[in-house]
């Protein structure tokens, strides 16, 4: 019966512009598909946004979100006078900037190197293995680092001693710690980040390389005059995305690597918020810090998106 009636309905493709009513009827079941996701977003995405109000309140667990008293900008005023917060802000920007300079280009460099490898098996192997660390959690990477960098039993110090050097407490000294943060992030993400560049290089027309070769360009000249200009758009988008996430210096990584010896120098906003909020239960203050971070984050995303459109690239949205 239903099937018969459905058949009588005109072919949707021939309708062109159909009325709102008929489209609502046509898609009535599809709205049902959306229900689980809509419920999820209301609870788990908009619920926390509603909860942000505790940044302007003195939240007490027993009184709940609504019952707690409004205190205006109290927590924000406290925040700007908090030396630890200023320090944590600076650490976040410092680590992010270092990562911007070293991590994003490492994916590009790896892609360009892989592209020069003509031996197909070797290339496949190299790209598989360099991508592997991306699938380890930071708990595992942090554990590996802790084990191999240990001053007494670690591999790196064992090798240093083997050659007659003095063992170094790598994770206990700020500069060495930051060095290992950058190196391990590079190790973890270069392979993964290279994929997008490899895809972009693969999309370059072979004719361009042929023309370059006819003009007598070697591999290096081809790289400078064909490959890089052709993937400039991708490079810009990747960099823009990185700038847009400046406020995220890598919670998982820092959290699984840091210790009391370097805490004050490598503590970032996210680790600070975690310790304040979850461990010390300073709910309102840590929410204020988190909100401040999110607002800056949003501004950066909007700015970088605009910038990306300005220079003629596709924005994100």
């Amino acid at each position: 019966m239903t099937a018969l009636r459905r058949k009588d309905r005109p072919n949707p493709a021939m309708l062109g512009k159909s009325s709102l009513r008929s489209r609502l009827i046509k898609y009535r079941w599809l709205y049902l598909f959306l229900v689980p996701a809509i419920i999820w977003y209301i609870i788990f995405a908009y619920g926390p946004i509603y909860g942000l109000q505790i940044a302007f309140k003195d939240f007490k667990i027993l009184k709940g979100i609504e019952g707690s008293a409004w205190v205006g900008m109290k927590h924000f005023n406290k925040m700007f006078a908090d030396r630890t917060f200023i320090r944590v802000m600076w650490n976040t920007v410092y680590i992010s900037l270092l990562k911007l300079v070293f991590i994003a280009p490492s994916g590009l460099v790896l892609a360009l190197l892989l592209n020069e490898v003509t031996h197909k098996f070797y290339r496949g192997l190299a790209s598989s293995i360099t991508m592997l660390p991306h699938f380890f959690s930071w708990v595992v990477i942090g554990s590996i680092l802790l084990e191999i960098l240990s001053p007494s039993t670690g591999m790196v110090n064992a090798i240093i001693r083997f050659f007659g050097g003095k063992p170094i407490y790598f994770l206990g000294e700020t500069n060495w710690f930051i060095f290992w943060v950058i190196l391990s992030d590079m190790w973890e993400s270069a392979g993964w980040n290279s994929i997008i560049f490899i895809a972009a290089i693969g999309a370059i027309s072979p004719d361009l390389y042929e023309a370059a070769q006819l003009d007598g360009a070697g591999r290096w000249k081809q790289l400078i005059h064909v490959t890089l200009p052709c993937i400039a758009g991708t490079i810009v988008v990747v960099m823009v995305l990185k700038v847009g996430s400046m406020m995220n210096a890598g919670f998982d990584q820092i959290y699984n690597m840091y210790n009391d010896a370097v805490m004050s120098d490598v503590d970032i906003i996210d680790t600070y918020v975690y310790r304040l909020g979850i461990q010390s239960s300073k709910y309102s203050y840590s929410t204020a810090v988190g909100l401040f971070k999110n607002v800056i984050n949003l501004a950066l995303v909007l700015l970088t998106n605009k910038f990306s459109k300005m220079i003629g690239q596709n924005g994100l949205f």
Partner: protein
Amino acid sequence: MIQAAEKKRRRSPINRGNPVAKALIYIFLLIFMISVIYPIYYLLMYSVSNYGGLSTSTDPFMLYPKGFTLKAYEIFFSQNYIHTGFGVTIFRTITGTFLTVIVTALTAYPLSKRDLPGRKFLIWFFMLNMFFQGGLIPTYLTIKNVGLLDNIWVLVLVPLCNTYYILLLREYFEGLPEALEEAAHIDGASALQIFAYVILPISIPSLMTIGTWVFFTHWNSYFDSMIYISSTAKHVVQVHIRRLVIEQNNMLMASTIAVSGGKMDQPTEQSMRAAGIMITIVPVLIVYPFVRQYFSKGMVLGAVKG
């Protein structure tokens, strides 16, 4: 397309490039590969070495085990927390991946209909979450308010939806030919039937891509378990390994090490920790070769949309 470019490039004789530069590139990549494999190999060798072997050895490179014992693994697999940990990890990974893929597809499909009334609003409703989130503490309080604290379903439900995956899949659905659905429609299939019997089967490669992403995210998650779960028996395995290796939790260590107690043929504390790391990465190493292809395909799908 990549292969075509490849062939053309290889055909031309001028294209050999500088052999020294090429050798350097091969060597550099080899060093990178060693930097990935060697630490894992080192920890593997360490994990099967015993106290006697390690205390007399002068070789720092650990090319072979110092003494040999599988005791470290034996001890681990007799620990209760390893059993419950793997149980919870496997539960969240399988249930979570399955549910996320289903909900993502269910959500992406209606949004791919260009004339769906309210489409623009719905897309913004979902997208807003990409740019602005409540953050750690408000999310924690929300979970607390809905009564999900210390409930293992929190590990499945909190990461259930991901706007990025929804948008990615929507884009893929938009690219499917309309004729496909029309034929089924004329045959009298309902929306759900079309979705289940026409759309989903041809989308399997895309669903696999998203599925593998979600799979590894779940396998490697530890933070949600740390903050939302309080009972030891409900923690994922990564949390226990974190406590053992990173926090060097004395109680956990004691319960694990007590059995070995410094005898010559027993594992040391370090080899116990190495074994702990190994048992969490071995499953990744086993699955990785089989799903690797889906990963890069999906990245390309998302990144170079043209």
